[in-house]
């Protein structure tokens, strides 16, 4: 790639620059193993799926990103999570609660609407959506919204979605003693298949 071409490519968010290129359109996940597996981190201007068998599983993987974004004053949003995001724990994980919005729409239509609006606006660095697997047209809309707003879209499902997802990243997560088992089922720009365990932050005994 010529210097000009690479400059142009890096100026356009979401432009894929092939396998093995150093990527600037990612945000570190804050988890070294995961960063390596994802060729740098969560892709910016794209959707990443986190799939687990149980509702809410994988939230801990988002923590370092949410903490870093909110600490630098960049807002993040949690849309229709299955449980209450527990403020004391988020604070302990380093999240600046002033920059976190928790959205609990009454139904799925409103949840998808809210996620799309927030991604599109560019006002939110990260929008995390908990939802049943997304239908292809809806996924495309959210993907487009993430591209437009140059945000990071995290979509968490508790069941396997269709195999034809266009998400840039798909992680499968499963619980394991004192850790979370991760499998990179797909990652745009690098090879999938990495498996590793991310250890829980050690809970302090009372």
């Amino acid at each position, binding site marked *: 790639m010529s210097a000009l071409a690479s400059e142009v490519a890096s100026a356009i968010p979401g432009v894929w620059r092939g396998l093995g290129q150093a990527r600037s359109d990612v945000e570190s996940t804050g988890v070294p193993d995961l960063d390596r597996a994802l060729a740098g981190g969560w892709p910016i201007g794209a959707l990443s799926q986190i799939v687990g068998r149980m509702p809410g599983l994988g939230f801990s993987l988002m923590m370092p990103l949410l903490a870093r974004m909110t600490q630098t004053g960049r807002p993040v949003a949690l849309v229709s999570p299955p449980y*209450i995001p527990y403020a004391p724990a988020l604070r302990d994980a380093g999240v600046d609660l002033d920059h976190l919005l928790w959205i*609990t729409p009454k139904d799925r239509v409103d949840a998808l609407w809210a996620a799309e609006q927030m991604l599109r606006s*560019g006002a939110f660095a990260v929008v995390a959506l908990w939802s049943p697997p997304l239908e292809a047209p809806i996924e495309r809309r959210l993907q487009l919204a993430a591209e437009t707003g140059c945000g990071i879209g995290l979509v968490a499902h508790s069941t396997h979605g269709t195999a034809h997802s266009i998400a840039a990243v798909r992680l499968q997560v499963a619980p394991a003693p004192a850790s979370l088992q991760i499998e990179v089922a797909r990652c745009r720009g690098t090879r999938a298949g990495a498996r590793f365990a991310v250890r829980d932050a050690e809970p302090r*005994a009372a």
Partner: protein
Amino acid sequence: MAVENAPLWLCIHLPSLPLEAFALPPEEVVSVVETQGSRRRLIRVSAPARQRGLYPGMAVSAALTLVPDIRLLDRKPEAERQALEAVACWAYRFGAPVTISTATGSVWIEIRRSLRLFGGWRLFRIEVEREGTALSCTALYGVAPTRPAAELLARSGVGLDRPIGRSSQLSLSMRDKPLTLLPFAEQTLDILYGSGLRSVGEVLSLPRDGLARRFGSGTARWLDQLIGHAPDVWKAFEPPAQYRRRFELAGVVTSTEALLFPLRAMIGDFSQYLRTRDVAVQQFSLVFVDGFRQRVALEIGLLAPTRDPVRLLLVLRERLDKLTLNEGVQEILLEANHFEPASIVQDDLFQRGRNDEDRATLHERLVARLGPEAVHRLAVTPDHRPEKAWSGTHKGDTTVHPRRPLWLLPEPQLIDPPKLLGPAERIECGWWEGTQERRDYFVAEDDSGRRLWAYRQPDDTQWWLHGLWQ
């Protein structure tokens, strides 16, 4: 244009005002009708109606033969006046005083001084053309030292290409204009035409006393005013201090989506008004009135004052989505009584980026559509009971807890005894509220290895899941 200190008028003539005052979707086959004596005639027709062969002046009976499904609307003078006043508000940005004529559908602005402020005619003209694209009405422009001449030029369609700067040029410039541009009664024009007259110049050359005897003194005086030989009398238009606008819909509207078209026009006018008075609005109300005079009121509150029509409409749109109208709406009222100084407002579309304004707009839209109960900010409160420790506004709280799970279940769930990973944490407080709580919390693990936050009450054997770590 030569330097002169006599007034110079910019006329904005709205040829389609009787039709556009209804704010109908452009694809409607519709005509506005006026009754003159026993005859009912079309006075304005929409573009689709024109394509089907209808034209102004046509008798209603003939129009119905040609296009049986044509929608006929009676003229609404009040709506026309309001639309005209909205244009007058808008026109203030180009100069003052501003004056209006509801009879002819025109607004005039005195612009002699403004020309210097804007840096000359050329730049002024660019500004008028640029801002004019925001008008919701079709507008024709004319510039001349007298109001009648400016209006006549506007109606002739010369636009801003042929301004007349000096009074001395008036007679000459008007000379070749066709007779039909004179704003006289139709019978008057018929008689003049029947006498073989074809141009304004020919009428101007007639003796005034004869004209006054034949057609009344008004006609003769108007001709003298046209060329600046008689003084023109007018009253300046003042924008009102409170905003109240009533909008009668052309039909009964039952879907909120269909309300958007008239609302867009109303918000456009409202925003013009705000700019004219150099203020912004943070609160206003919309009232929808149905055929039984039942009113549904929407109070619109914004996070920050604005006068940006795009933003106002966005917020409105979200509120509309949630509005249920039992009966068809016939009338909309828009009212605002409190205004904020505009100095704190950023103007408008062009400086938008990823800034707080956007964030505030987005927040408003979320709250408008989802309801305030669905949009939360999190904060930590000093209460030790887990379910009480996550809301409220005690941001500065620095209570040190042992580590807490990321997820809290809204209602604790009964579970099988889990594998415990550590000692109990006794949580006991709230007794002063009469709801004493005493629980022993454990970090635990289920069969899959998922880490749990579970408790049981000291005198109980049942286990409850209250939180999750991953």
